[in-house]
C-alpha cells in the first residue's frame, strides 16, 4: 500500500526544519494521508 508524504518528507525535500509542534504535525499528517487517498477512501 503506498504511503502518503509526511511533514517530515516535505522538510527533507525542502531541506528546512519546520518549527511545528508534534500534535500539529500529527494533524497535518492525518490530513496529508486523507488528501493522498483522494479524500474518501481512507
Amino acid at each position, binding site marked *: 500500500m503506498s504511503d502518503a508524504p509526511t511533514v517530515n518528507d516535505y522538510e527533507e525535500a525542502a531541506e*528546512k526544519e519546520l518549527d511545528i*509542534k508534534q500534535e500539529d504535525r500529527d494533524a497535518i499528517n492525518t490530513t496529508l494521508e486523507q488528501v493522498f487517498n483522494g479524500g474518501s477512501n481512507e
Partner: protein
Amino acid sequence: MDRRKFVAGLGALAGGSALATGTGAFSSVEAGRNLSVSVADDSNAYLGIEALDDEYIDATDGTLDIALTEANATDEGGEGINANAVTGISDLFKITNQGSQNVDVFAQPLTFIQADIDSGVESIAVFLTPQDPDYNFLFDVIPIEPTTIPGSIAYKNVDPGNELRFGLTAFAAPDTATGTVEINNSISITAEPNAEENP
C-alpha cells in the same frame, strides 16, 4: 484508519507555532527561471493541466491557478482556510500527459510558508499534495539543485494518457493568523521526455 486524537491541551494549534525559522517565504521559485507560460488552452496542451474542482481554481485567464481566496470564494461563500486549523483539499487539479512520448513530470516547490516575522507567531504552511495515482510510478520527493529549488515531486515514465492528481494540505496557526499571513506564489510544472524510453 486510526484517527489520532490530535489536540492535547488548550488549542495545541493555538500555541502559536511559528513555522519558519527563516525570514519570510523561502520557497519562491528561482527568479531567473520564472518563465510564465501561457499555453493556448491548458486542457489540451501536451501537458494537460485541468481543474478537478473549479471552485478552488481560478481559470479565468486560460491558465489554471489555485486560489483559496476571498476573490475566488466558493459558491457557498467560503473565502479561505480556517485559522488554527488544518485544511485538506483533494482532487484539486490533474496533470495529463497528452503528448506522444513517455515523460518525467516534476512539480515544485512543494512547500509554501509564510510566517509573520514581527510577531513571530502567526504562520501558514501549504503543502502541494500528490494523490495516489492508480499505476506504478517511481514518485520521488527529491531536492533539485538543493541550493535553488527546494525539492519537487518527480513522476518518472508517465505514459501518454496517464494523469497525475494533486490536492493541497494547508495549516494556519494560531487563531490570530486570519488576515495576517497568506500565500501568493507559483508552482512550476515541468515535463521532459523520459530518457530511457526516448533514446
